[in-house]
Each structure stands twice: as structure tokens, then as C-alpha cells.
């Protein structure tokens, strides 16, 4: 707050100096010293432009800080949820195992004793249902553990264009049936990237599958690779799908956040992607205009950074 006041005060002084110089210049002009007047006026102009430039820079820096703060909050949130989910997953796994055993026991009893046939069918039905639900819980806990597990990346040199193309081909087979075209624009300038290949594959594949899901049928996925201004490798996945509602855009990397119908998605895919990309020293972001599609961008450092194993 103090900084803010000081800054505004500085800007006020800068602008005031410019205004005063102009007034002084007008005075000098009419009192017969045009040379001085022009000089002072120029000083005033310099003061005005200097202050203005400074203010623009400060605003820009503030906007950047805001963005970084947001990313930091997101990372911390995810780390906290990661620990929490490890706890939950362990807790859920044990009862699941017991339920599974119970079902086995019920099946065993059902085989031996005589019951009315429709009763039996009912019991078998519920057994099947229990098994299905247990499977589902198990799947969730495994993914949660996966999310929380501190899998350290193993860095290898990899051709990112090839990696992306491999995943694109994998998705293309299914995309063709839904009349979804995949367009490629790979930058030839990207040399090999030092990263964890299977982890990046997982992220890229996840984004491509999401894009396909968002489109449904008839549309287009555009994949771009390029190097960014600050020397990172960027992979951009753009789709012509349903897009993401404005209010959801801040939450799509949160664990358990999903817009898919119940039972269709665990809401962990993108949060896992976020976790992986952060671990690799990069970042992931989204832009979307609802109804027109979404653009996901992954940024990865090309070279290993100091102090990393």
C-alpha cells in the first residue's frame, strides 16, 4: 500500500513538473525569451514522456506479478491436494479390498445353496454391480496415487516434433471416424528437448483426447510446435470444440473438476498434466472462447536447468 502511494505520488510529481515547465515556457515566451521557453518546454515534454513510460512499465510489471501469483497459488493448491489425495486413496483402498472379498464369498455361497431362481438372479445382479463399483473406486484411487506419487522425471534428449507426431497418429485413427481432422504445424527450429519423454507423451495424449472429446464430431484439431521468445519449447493444441465457460477456466486444472457427465470422467486428467509439466520445469495454460474452441499451451524448458538431477 505504501509502495502504491509512493508510486502515485511520484507519477503526480512527474506530471506536475511537466505541467509547470509548460506554464513556465509560455510565460518565458511572452516575456521575450523564446530560446529559454523552447528549452524549458522540451524539458517538460521529456518529463511527461518519461513519467508516462514509467507508469506503463509499472502496470505491465503488475499484470505479470498478478499472473505469477496466480500460478503460484495454483501450484501450492495442487501440492496440498496431492498430499490429501494420497491419504484418501490409502483409506479407500482397504475397505475396497474387503468389499471385493465379501463379493467373492457371496458368490461362493450362491453356488452351493438352493434358492428361488429369481432371488438368485437378483443377488448375482448386485454382485456384478458391487464389482463394477469397486473397479471404479480402484481406478480413482490408483489415479489419485499416481497424482500424488513423487515420480521424479528422468531427463533424456528427445525430438519433440516426433514425440507429438507419434501421439497425433495414435489419436488420428479414432478421430477419422468422427470426421475430426488433425492439422500439424511443426517448427523445424526446435532442436532436441531435454525432458522426460513418457511424461510429455502422457500430457500431449491427454490434451489430444480432451480436444477430441470437446469436438465430439466434425471439427478440427490443430497442433503447433514452436520455440517461445524466452527459449522454451511450446506445444499448442487448438480445437474447434465446445470451449470452456469463462467461470470454469480458472478451475480446469483443479483435481476432481470435470464437466463430463457423472461416471464419465474422474476430473484428474488435466490436474495430472499440470503436475507433470510443473515437475518438468514448464507450465501449461488455457485460453478459450466458449462455443468456438479451446487452446492449450504447454511450455517446456529446452535444456536442463542447474541443480536438477
Amino acid at each position, binding site marked *: 500500500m505504501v509502495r502504491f502511494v509512493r508510486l502515485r505520488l511520484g507519477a503526480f510529481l512527474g506530471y506536475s513538473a511537466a505541467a509547470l515547465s509548460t506554464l513556465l515556457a509560455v510565460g518565458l515566451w511572452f516575456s521575450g525569451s523564446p530560446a529559454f521557453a523552447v528549452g524549458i518546454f522540451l524539458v517538460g515534454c521529456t518529463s511527461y514522456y518519461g513519467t508516462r513510460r514509467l507508469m506503463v512499465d509499472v502496470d505491465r510489471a503488475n499484470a505479470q506479478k498478478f499472473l505469477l501469483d496466480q500460478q503460484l497459488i495454483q501450484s501450492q493448491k495442487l501440492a496440498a491436494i496431492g498430499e490429501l489425495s494420497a491419504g484418501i486413496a490409502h483409506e479407500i483402498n482397504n475397505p475396497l479390498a474387503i468389499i471385493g472379498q465379501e463379493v467373492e464369498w457371496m458368490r461362493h455361497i450362491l453356488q452351493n445353496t438352493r434358492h428361488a431362481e429369481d432371488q438368485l438372479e437378483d443377488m448375482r445382479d448386485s454382485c456384478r454391480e458391487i464389482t463394477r463399483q469397486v473397479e471404479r473406486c480402484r481406478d480413482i484411487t490408483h489415479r489419485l496415487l*499416481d497424482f500424488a506419487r513423487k515420480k521424479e522425471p*528422468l531427463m*533424456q*534428449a528427445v525430438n519433440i516434433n516426433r514425440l507429438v507426431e*507419434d501421439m497425433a497418429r495414435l489419436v488420428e*485413427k*479414432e478421430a477419422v471416424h468422427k470426421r475430426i481432422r488433425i492439422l500439424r504445424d511443426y517448427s523445424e527450429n526446435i532442436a532436441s528437448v*531435454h525432458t522426460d519423454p*513418457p511424461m510429455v507423451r502422457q500430457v500431449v495424449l491427454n490434451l489430444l483426447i480432451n480436444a477430441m472429446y470437446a469436438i465430439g464430431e466434425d471439427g478440427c484439431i490443430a497442433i503447433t510446435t514452436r520455440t517461445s521468445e524466452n527459449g522454451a519449447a511450446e506445444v499448442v493444441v487448438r480445437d474447434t470444440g465446445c470451449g470452456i465457460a469463462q467461470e470454469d477456466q480458472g478451475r480446469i486444472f483443479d483435481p476432481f473438476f470435470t464437466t463430463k457427465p457423472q461416471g464419465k470422467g474422474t476430473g484428474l486428467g488435466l490436474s495430472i498434466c499440470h503436475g507433470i509439466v510443473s515437475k518438468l520445469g514448464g507450465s501449461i495454460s488455457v485460453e478459450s472462447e466458449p462455443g468456438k474452441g479451446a487452446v492449450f499451451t504447454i511450455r517446456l524448458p529446452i535444456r536442463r536447468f542447474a541443480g536438477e538431477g
Partner: protein
Amino acid sequence: MRAVAEGRRGSTMEGLRVLVVDDEPDFLETIVKRFQRRNIDVVGVDNGKAALDLLEEQHFDVVILDVRMPGMDGLEVLKEIKKRRPLVEVIMLTGHASVESGMQGMQLGAFDYVIKPAAIDDLLEKVQQAHERKLLHEDRLRNSKLLQ
């Protein structure tokens, strides 16, 4: 660092043992022959159960594993391999892929997915990268043990 990685890549063929698992005899035979021609120590089996048994008895670095097989399917075998031999790297082979199985495979720790029919050079390069990864992994474990 790059020099080290490349130096290592040059030697990834030494001591490399590959296990190929596929129920299509033609494919299996071709791939084994072609790898042998390049002096790679390779063994082929036609089902998941046999692959797991062999992994218990012998040392392998990289497994090339078909997704669709009768009996134990590729994903089940992958899960089992990662449980018993977490350091072994697995490359999944897929004919008519479902992307869902691709995602599951990657989550279960597969190194890569290759679509059939695979160009032998592509496959070979992926095998080398997978092997390089295994060596890096072993290096790291050795270092962390030394530190303790």
C-alpha cells in the same frame, strides 16, 4: 551433459536384451529376425503369460508388447511387468488403437506407443531410447544408494 547423453546412446546396444511379445507369428518372426540381423540380443514369445515367466528367469532391458492378445491382454501384462520389474521399459505395439487404452498404457508406465506396422528403424530408435532411460534410472538408484 549432452555429450554424455550422446556418448551413452552410442553404447546403448551393448548388453541390451529385448523381449518381443506378440501373438501374430509373422510379425513376431520378422521383428526378431530383423533385430538379430542388427546384432541385438532378442527373444520372442507369443503370449503374455510366457513373457512374464521368462522375465522371472532371465534379464531383459526392454519389452515390446502387443496391446491386443488373447488370454492376458497387453495392459494386464504391462501392469504385471511394472509391478515385478519396475525398471524394465515397455514399448506398446498397437494395431487398431483405442486412444483410451493408449492413455491407460501411458499412465501405467509404458515408455511409448508404436502403431503397427512399425518401421523397423523407428522401433529400433525407440528401443534405444527406452534402454537409455533404463540406464539413467539405474544410475540414479545407484547414486541415491551411495548417498545413503
